[in-house]
């Protein structure tokens, strides 16, 4: 069976690094793996989504409506935006973090109230994790992405511990490896 995971959030939150680590870890666990992402315009503070799929044999790198097993959200509004990608029995792992889009910041639009409530209204299997808080405790909000991967890891045990570690070592700059391994560990124990 192919597993399909959507990672979504805002440009600058480390989404592409996170999906790289996840797909590398899947590859090191012996799976066929594919991921998709979009560059360019979308990175200037716009919404960003990356999709990862792994299994025996994967064809499409892209996930369409109703195909995702898991949505991993780095910003809660972005989970709502992508909710139609989730399977009816899919799962959401989200950090309770709000970033105002520019139209909201300028007072031209409004950020909806109770976003987590809206997610729960549509999805029965929701895990709210305070990854941003953990990252701030670790002294660097930028490792939120790897804390989130730690939180994800318990839900996909087919990806092995050593594979995660190998992927993190390969994908983050040398001097941040220890920090990221700690962030991952903290994420594992979060849920």
């Amino acid at each position, binding site marked *: 069976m192919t597993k399909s995971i959507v990672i979504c959030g805002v440009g600058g939150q480390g989404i592409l690094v996170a999906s790289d680590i996840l797909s590398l870890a899947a*590859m090191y666990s012996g799976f066929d793996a594919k*991921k*998709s992402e979009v560059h*360019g315009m979308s990175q200037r503070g716009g919404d960003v989504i990356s999709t990862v799929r792994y299994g025996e044999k994967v064809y*499409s790198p892209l996930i369409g409506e109703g195909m995702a097993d898991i949505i991993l959200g780095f910003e809660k509004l972005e989970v*709502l935006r992508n909710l139609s990608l989730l399977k009816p029995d899919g799962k959401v792992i989200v950090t309770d973090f709000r970033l105002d889009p520019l*139209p909201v910041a300028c007072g031209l639009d409004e950020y909806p109230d109770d976003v987590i409530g809206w997610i729960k209204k549509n999805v029965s299997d929701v895990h709210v994790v305070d990854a941003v808080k953990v990252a701030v405790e670790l002294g660097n909000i930028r490792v939120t992405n790897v804390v989130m991967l730690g939180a994800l890891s318990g839900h996909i045990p087919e990806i092995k511990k050593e594979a995660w570690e190998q992927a993190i070592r390969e994908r983050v700059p040398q001097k941040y490896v220890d920090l990221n391994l700690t962030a991952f560990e903290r994420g594992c124990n979060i849920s």
Partner: protein
Amino acid sequence: MKALLSGNEAVARGAWEGGVHVGCAYPGTPSTEIMEALSQYPEVYTEWSVNEKVSLEVASGASFAGARAMVAMKHVGLNVAADPLFSLSYIGATGGLVIVTCDDPGMHSSQNEQDNRHYARSAKVPLLEPSDSQEAKEFTRLAFEISEEFDTPVMVRLTTRISHSKSIVELGERKEVPVKEYVKDVKKRVILPAHARERHGFVEERMERLRKYAEEFPYNRIEEGDPELGIIADSVAYMYAKEVFPEASFLKLSMVWPFPRELVRRFASKVKKIIVVEENDPFIEEQVRLLGIEVTGKDKIPLVGELNPTRVAVCLGVKKEEELPKPELPHIPKRPPALCPGCPHTGVFNVIRKLKLIATGDIGCYTLGTLPPLNAMDTCVEMGASIGNAFGMQLVMKDDKLRKKVVAVIGDSTFFHSGITGLINLYYNRGITTVIILDNRTTAMTGHQDHPGTGKTAKGEKGREVDLVKLIKGIGIEHVYVVNPYDLKELTEVIKREIEREEPSVIIPRAPCVLLRRGEKFTPMRVIEDKCTGCRVCLKVGCPAISMRGDKARIDPFLCTGCTLCQQTCPFGAIEFVEEK
């Protein structure tokens, strides 16, 4: 050895394994990382060319002199390079010549959804289409061999989903290919009409030989399955169709041009019904129909936008629209991309808006100046268009006041790409346009590539730097002013003065892209709550670091770079620097 590579990285790897000597490109999403990856290989000369046309000319020069050469560009880049492409089809290739084009169905970061398979057909060159990274690597390597064997440029077409998807690739080693000795051959390389007539005959005969090659090409393959349903698909659409119709028979097309018609006939004779699954135009579908074979295609599959497995399933009736998840949602505000906090473009657009100017625009990060709250751009057509557009508008505007409101706004990289010719045209034909060149010392939009104005090469080495001011003065334009884009007063004065002039002038707001200053420690600004009246004027600056908290403005200290634009805008003096501790 296995690696997880993007399609773009795989193309670079394939070129390297295939012994490429020269790689040229002008950046453009989704193609940019091809040359970035290729420039990591020390055996290969790589360059950022000023535009796609020049890149193809340099690469074909290398091919004339016996080397293997590759160019890479986004789909619209090939419009710029189309002129040499059509001639090069006749001239052919001595060293292998490969042209990689990256199309963008869905327009993730492009102005149109053009389908560059049409170029292969009209320029009469072969086209290969990988459907994952492994194929991207293999096909690029093979393209050099096809090019030399058949004396032709070869096109490799990727799409955003091939370029920017990663999948597992089996790596190979580099095969060194010696540069052939240069042999003069004017009948081949000087396309005088007399020579070209002969070469055209050669081209038609070459395409027939290539068609036979395509019929046998192992990656054009029939996968036997259920004889009730046959699917013909190329590129990533093949992957989507495999998800949706795991049992069907497939004809996977990888060399789409010249069209392998016998293979298609053979496939058609084995299956009862045929569906062609492809993105963009009905390119394959029309070829199949020409054979008198009935197919389902664009009557069901959308012409507009990108496909995905769900879309394929729904439009072909495998899944019902009603079965798709329809979450119950509140109003979700859009999250459009925006100019970064501290962006040197922001101030210029504030002045343009305030002076109510008509700004013909161009392509780059600064196109975001179109969006609210800046609303400061009137047109954007293609790279370099701003200057000609402004001149053309002014030609026919009778009202002098209105005419003098027109300015052209163009980025530095875009100016070198194709703004220079527009400026010369304007000067020569007695235009009076004020041209604003936003000089942020880089090609920011596509991820900060160097260009002639920075004087650094694609390999990060020292090249020669073109002096913008000298260049423009050299044309004969006398009024050229370099200004500080963070000083609204200076900007306003200079722009006001220059638009009144009955002569052309160029204003160059110059400061490095704020993302190039990442290592710097910025002192942020803060709102003095007692002085803030909640008038929201600062929100109009268009800086993502400013928002309202209750009825007071607030500046995010982590995002703020201390550029002072908001301070200069605040009517109540309510913004100051945070004191350094």
